[in-house]
């Protein structure tokens, strides 16, 4: 067998943050190569470099029979036979299914192609049939549900008859049946057409079921690699997370405290069903579950960013107005969003302004005058508490590393001294040191009486800070586990076993 794709010693940094360092891997002809790693381990960056939409600082990517390359040229990558299915699908919402699958516009030629509509429709219908889907090729993509859009993206990749398809978490939004069909299709294309696949997934059982070979990334370097037969779920999760970090444990769970948060029969249409639980003062509760399990939606509905259709959320015995974020904030809830760059930070503003963004109201006189020095003092106090390392708080926040940026986002919210802190993936794309510090901060907060809810797909993280983990699957609360002596392995089984049942 020979390699279709060879990645040789690729490195890439973003403003001082190392995303990839000396990563090498090879995808064999007619094989499925799985790339696994935690969020922020560098998988997406590697995907983009292979696809030619991002350049490598060092190292090269080469398709068999072509020159090694390292620059930006997405068209070239496609012509060399790489098809990428991105996590965000990269579809054109305003065009029809047929045109997304078999576009007419690979070039910018002015020559009319009179029959492209019918030929695109035929090609699209054929591709969709191959996937076992009954989507009409004439539907406009923006009217399709997410799962069907995913199929359209896959169909589009297929029609290019590529030598290799790179799939970035293709099964995240699919149902079990759809996943089975997709995996069967991947196998068929591999066996019958000798096509190669690079498959990125969080679902480790899926990886082991499908892969011929595996590369595990951790913090931007290859943690381990080898034939899939050498791996077990346990080894995969160990290699992904590194054993060292999971040693820290939460401080003792508080006992005999009044409940601060009471959730009763909470429902969000199409996402979360009938969830009830309580969280006491000083308690840290983890929310675990795979992507699409309702994990994020539960966190959002607790602070009114998502409108619940039924049930209630009470803080200290008083119900919140459903779907009213500002009300939740006034009642002492803080929400730290998942996407730091678009939802958490004002990238061009100073570090200090970012940390001060949520507390301007607390330093305003009755006439509206802002007491800047007091505001700055508050911001700097919390930046100091979180050990944000910078020569100057006047620097723009985008000069900081991912870990320090996340500390700034946390400072912003801690400055409000929240009674209930909701964190969504608080250490995604954060270095080990910052991660450790952030966990330490969460433990301190809990000790001082703050209730913390942390939604995360990072299992060692949940075990490191949470007293209890609520396991969600298909929008339902499946388990409420005390973390006491729980292992990563046991928690993983609780989370993934349920997804198999559904």
């Amino acid at each position, binding site marked *: 067998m020979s390699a279709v794709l060879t990645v040789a010693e690729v490195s890439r940094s973003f403003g001082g943050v190392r995303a990839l360092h000396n990563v090498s891997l090879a995808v064999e002809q007619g094989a499925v190569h799985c790339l696994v790693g935690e969020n922020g381990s560098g998988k997406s960056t590697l995907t983009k470099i292979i696809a030619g939409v991002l350049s490598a600082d060092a190292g090269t990517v080469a398709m068999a029979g072509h020159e090694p390359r390292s620059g930006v040229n997405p*068209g070239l990558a496609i012509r060399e036979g790489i098809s990428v299915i991105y996590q965000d699908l990269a579809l054109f919402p305003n065009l029809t299914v047929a045109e997304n699958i078999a576009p007419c*516009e690979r070039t910018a030629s*002015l020559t*009319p192609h009179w029959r492209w509509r019918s030929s695109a429709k035929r090609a699209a219908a054929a591709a969709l049939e191959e996937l076992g889907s009954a989507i009409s090729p004439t539907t406009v993509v923006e009217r399709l549900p997410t799962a069907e859009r995913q199929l359209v993206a896959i169909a589009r990749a297929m029609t290019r008859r590529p030598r290799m398809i790179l799939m970035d978490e293709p099964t995240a939004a699919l149902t079990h049946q759809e996943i089975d069909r997709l995996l069967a299709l991947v196998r068929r294309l591999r066996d019958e057409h000798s096509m190669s696949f690079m498959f990125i997934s969080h679902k480790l059982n899926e990886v082991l079921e499908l892969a011929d070979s595996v590369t595990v990334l951790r913090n931007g370097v290859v943690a381990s690699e080898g034939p899939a037969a050498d791996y077990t779920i346990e080894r995969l999760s160990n290699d992904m997370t590194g054993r060292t970090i999971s040693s820290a444990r939460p401080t003792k769970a508080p006992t005999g405290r009044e409940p601060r948060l009471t959730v009763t029969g909470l429902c969000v249409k199409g996402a979360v069903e009938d969830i009830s639980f309580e969280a006491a003062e000083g308690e840290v509760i983890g929310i675990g579950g795979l992507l699409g399990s309702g994990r*994020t939606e539960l966190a959002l509905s607790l602070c009114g960013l998502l409108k619940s259709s039924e049930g209630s959320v009470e803080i200290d015995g008083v119900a919140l107005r459903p*779907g009213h974020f500002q009300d939740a904030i006034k009642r002492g809830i803080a929400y730290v969003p998942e996407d730091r760059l678009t939802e958490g930070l004002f990238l061009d503003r100073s570090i200090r302004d970012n940390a001060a963004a949520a507390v301007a109201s607390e330093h305003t006189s009755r006439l509206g005058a802002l007491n800047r020095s007091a505001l700055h003092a508050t911001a700097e106090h919390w930046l100091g508490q979180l050990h944000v390392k910078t020569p100057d708080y006047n620097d723009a926040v985008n000069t900081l590393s991912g870990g320090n940026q996340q500390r700034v986002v946390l400072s912003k919210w801690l400055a409000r001294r929240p009674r209930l802190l909701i964190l969504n993936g608080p250490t995604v794309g954060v270095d080990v040191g910052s991660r450790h510090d952030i966990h330490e901060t969460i433990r301190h907060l809990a000790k001082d009486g703050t209730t913390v809810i942390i939604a995360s797909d990072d299992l060692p993280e949940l075990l490191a800070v949470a007293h209890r983990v609520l396991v969600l699957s298909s929008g339902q609360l499946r388990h409420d586990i005390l973390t006491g002596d729980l292992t990563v392995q046991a928690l993983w089984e609780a989370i993934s076993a349920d997804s198999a049942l559904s």
Partner: protein
Amino acid sequence: MKRILGIAQDAPSSFVLVSIGALYVAFIARNSAFIELPHQFAILRSSIVIGIMALGLLLVLISGGIDVSFTAVAVLSMYSTVQILNGVDYGGPIVVAFLIAAAIGGLLGLLNGALISLLRLPTLIVTLATLTLFRGFMLFFIGTDRIRELPAQMKPFARSTIVSVATPNGGKASLHVGILLLVGLALAVAVLLRWTPFGRAIYAIGGNRQAAERAGLPIRRVELGVYGLAGSMAGIAGVVDAALIRAADPFTIVGTELDVLAAVVIGGAAITGGRGGVLGTFLGVILIALVDSSLVLAGIPTEWQKLFVGLFILAGVMLPALRTWSTRTDPRTIE
């Protein structure tokens, strides 16, 4: 309510069609002269110049940009074309005038496109700058005089009609040949948008720029092409305008940016890109021409016209917002 809005969503032209129909009924009820041929021909005639410019602007809007400099491009191309042809004492076919104007307009459009991809600023700001730049350039370096002596072949063109009908009161109603030019260009743009890879690429870029980039589309080249074509269209519109008013007036057209933009937006093109078509634009142009030229006949005082036009434009631009409201049912909007 949802049903009604749903119709609007499926056919972006339905608002225009309903409006045109309603206006016709209202106008006929007010004044039967409205439906007679002279006035109908006048409406068509007044839609020629706006229509040609609207076709160019349509391309820009679909690609996700906006252009307000096209009026200055139109006048600059027309005025310099007339000067060039008068300078060499040209007597040949008028098509040469169109070609020269299209070339000059195309170059100015390319300049727009180049500045936009170079500066990476909102297209509104860049084209506002080139609007004043082109205009100032023409009025200072080329001239400010109204030229009454047009090149020889433009006079016959100015008089050419497709049909002429005698009116009962002894006059003559004729449909200007320029309407054929508008229809021809509209067909060409329709073919371009519907059947050429270039046209489909415009929709793709306007729909999802990042995805277009990842799919390896030559975004910069397409954008240059779009602004270049918009410039060429404006140049042609400029020459037609000169022929219709039988003079090269450096102060004509400028000020109609808003009418043209309104026509295209009312016709269903989204200012956020990716949406819009020739048929809708054509209807939008007719609607604007209808309102502009018929309110007097309907007995609405001249001074009230602008108010009605403003209301129409606002209603037209509010339509996409209504459309979003009617489809907003999913509570999961955070993603």
